[in-house]
C-alpha cells in the first residue's frame, strides 16, 4: 500500500511556484513549504492567503509559495500578521518562524498574539539552532548540545534549559490550538529490513490543515514542527533524522497540547 501525502500526489500544486528551493539537502523547511501549499490548495484559500515571512531560513519562502507575502523584521511576524488580519479579516494570515525568531527575539510578539486569541496561524520550525546565521545556540538547543556559541555544549546552569514553546503557549488562555509535530521521517524495522515511514509527515500535514481551520473558526493556532539542521548539527542527513526521533522528542514530546475547538476530532 502506498501512502499518499498529498491528494495530488507529487503533482503540481497551485500554491507552489516552480522555483527550486535554496534549502540544504535534508532540511525540512522545503517539506513544510509543500505541506502548507497542499493544505492551502485543499482548503481552496490560495487567493485569500497572505504569508508573513520571518527572518531566518524561512525568509525566502516568498519565492516558493504563490501567495502575497510580507517579510517581517526578526521576531515581529505575529505582530505584522495581527495588523493585516485586523484590517482584512477575510484573509487567512500565517507566519512561518524559526525557533530563534519566534522563541527568542520574538517571544513577546508570539505570546501576545496567543494571549489575545488573535485569529492567525503560527508555524514554528524548531531545529534547536540558529540555522541561517551559522549554527549558534537557540532557545531550544538541547542540554549539552554543541553549537558555535556553546562549543563545550549548552550549559543549562548558565543559559537555562531549552524553551518549550508548545508547553508555554498551551498555558495561555487565548491559544485555541497547540500542537507539536515532527517533519523528520522515521526509521523503522520491517521484514524487509530498515525502512522509512512518513507517519510523522502525515501527522504534520493534518496539523497544518487543522491550524488553518482553527483560524477560519476565529482562533489562534500554533504548530511547532521539529526539524533537523544537519549542516549545523554536523551530522549526516539520516543521523539528523534519527537525532530528532530518538533524542529531540524526549525533550520536546510530540502531541496535541491544546485543542479548545476540537478540530482534531472532526
Amino acid at each position, binding site marked *: 500500500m502506498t501512502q499518499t501525502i498529498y491528494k495530488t500526489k507529487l503533482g503540481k500544486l497551485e500554491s507552489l511556484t516552480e522555483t527550486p528551493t535554496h534549502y540544504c539537502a535534508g532540511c525540512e523547511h522545503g517539506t513544510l513549504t509543500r505541506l502548507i501549499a497542499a493544505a492551502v490548495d485543499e482548503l481552496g484559500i490560495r487567493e485569500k492567503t497572505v504569508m508573513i515571512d520571518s527572518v531566518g531560513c524561512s525568509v525566502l519562502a*516568498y519565492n516558493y509559495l504563490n501567495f502575497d507575502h*510580507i517579510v517581517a523584521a526578526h521576531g*515581529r511576524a505575529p505582530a505584522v500578521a495581527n*495588523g*493585516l488580519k*485586523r484590517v482584512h479579516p477575510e484573509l487567512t494570515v500565517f507566519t512561518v518562524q524559526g525557533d530563534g525568531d519566534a522563541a527568542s527575539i520574538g517571544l*513577546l510578539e508570539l505570546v*501576545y498574539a496567543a494571549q489575545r486569541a488573535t485569529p492567525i496561524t503560527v508555524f514554528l520550525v524548531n531545529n534547536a539552532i540558529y540555522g541561517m546565521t551559522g549554527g549558534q545556540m537557540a532557545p531550544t538547543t538541547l542540554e549539552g548540545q554543541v553549537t558555535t556559541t556553546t562549543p563545550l555544549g549548552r550549559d543549562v546552569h548558565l543559559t537555562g534549559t531549552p524553551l518549550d514553546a508548545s508547553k508555554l503557549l498551551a498555558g495561555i488562555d487565548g491559544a485555541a490550538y497547540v500542537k507539536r509535530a515532527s517533519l523528520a521521517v522515521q526509521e523503522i524495522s520491517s521484514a524487509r529490513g530498515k525502512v522509512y515511514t512518513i507517519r510523522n509527515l502525515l501527522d504534520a500535514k493534518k496539523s497544518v490543515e487543522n491550524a488553518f481551520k482553527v483560524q477560519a473558526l476565529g482562533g489562534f493556532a500554533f504548530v511547532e514542527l521539529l526539524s533537523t539542521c544537519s549542516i549545523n548539527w554536523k551530522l549526516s542527513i539520516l543521523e539528523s533524522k534519527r537525532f530528532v526521533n530518538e533524542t529531540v522528542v524526549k525533550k520536546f514530546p510530540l502531541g496535541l497540547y491544546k485543542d479548545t475547538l476540537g478540530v482534531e476530532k472532526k
Partner: protein
Amino acid sequence: MTGNRVYLKGNEALAYGALEAGLNAYFAYPITPSSEIPETLAKEFGNKKYPEYKFFLQAASELEAINMVIGAASGGARAMTATSSPGFSLKQEGLSYAACMELPLLIADICRAGPGLGNLGPEQSDYFQGTKGGGHGDYRLIVLAPATVQEMASLPRLGFDLAFKYRNPVLILGDAFTGQLKEDVEFPEFTPEHYEVSSWATTGAKGRPPHILNSLELDFQKHYKHLGSIYEKYRHAQENEVRFEEYKTEDADSVIVSFGIASRIAKGAVNRMRSRGVKAGLFRPITLWPFPKIQLKRLASEGKRFLDVELNSGQMLEDVKLAVGDGVTVNFLGKWGGIVPTEAEIENKLKRLEVVAV
C-alpha cells in the same frame, strides 16, 4: 467634529485630525506625554461618525505596535501609531523596514526631554532621529512639525496624503508642549483623497501575481536599483513638498529660524521687537524633511542676520547652516531639559547680536 470650533488639547486634536483624515486602524502603546492620543482614539472607537475607523488595539510594546501598523499598512489601510521619545527610539526598527518596503503609515512623536528617560517636559531633541533616518540604513521620513493645536489637528490629513502619495512613513514631530496645550480648533469640511493601493497591497493574490512587501534583496544590483528608485522619490519630495511659514521676514534685518513650539515663542519675540521698531522676522519650517533650504538660502542672499532657536543643543541648526552656506553666521539660542526660552530671552539674544553687528 467637522465644522465645529472646539477646545482641545493638542494630543486630542491630533487624534481627531487623524479620524477626520480617514484613519482605519490605530495601534497604541501608552507613554507620557502622548497618551491622550490613544485615549481619545479608544474613546471614539465605534463612533458612527467615523465609519472608516475599523480597529483599535493596545499593543504589548512599542515594537509590537509599529509592526502591527506595518501589517495594517501592508493591507493598504490608513494605519497609525503615536509615541514619545523613548518609544520613538523603539519605533526605529519598524520605520527602517517600512521605508524600504515603501509602506504608507503615520506616526507621531510627542517629543519629551531626553536622552534616556529624561523628563516629561518639552524638547525638540528628536530632530536628528526624525529627519536623518533614525533607524539603520539610508532612508528618510517625511517630517511635519506642528506649532499650534490647530496644526496638530490638520497635519494628520497632510500626513496621510503624503504617506500614500510617496508610499513612505510620515512623522508628525510634536513636543510635550504642543501635545498638552489646549486651544480652539476648527475642523473644516474635508474628504480624504483616495489613493489606489491595489497595485501593491497584500490583500490576496486573486487574478494577479503575488504582491511581496519586502526589505530583503540579496541581489546587490537589484537592491541598488530599488534604493535608487526610493532616493528618486525623495528627490521629488524635496522639490515638491517643502512647507514653511514666513512671518515679517520681507523687510527684516534679523530672522529667527525656529519650528514647533519654539517658533511660537519666537513669534512673540518678533512682535515685541517690531513694537519697539526693530525689524525682526520669523522663518518657520513646517516640513523638517524635506527641509526648506532654498527658501533659507534666498533669505541669506538678502543679507539677513540669523538666529536659530530650538529646544535642544542645536540640531536643526546644522541644516540651517548648510542651507545658508559658508560665510553666513547663524547664531543659536537653545534650551533643553524641559525648559523653554522666554520671549524676553530671545529678544535679549538678538539685541546682543545687534550690538556686536554695530
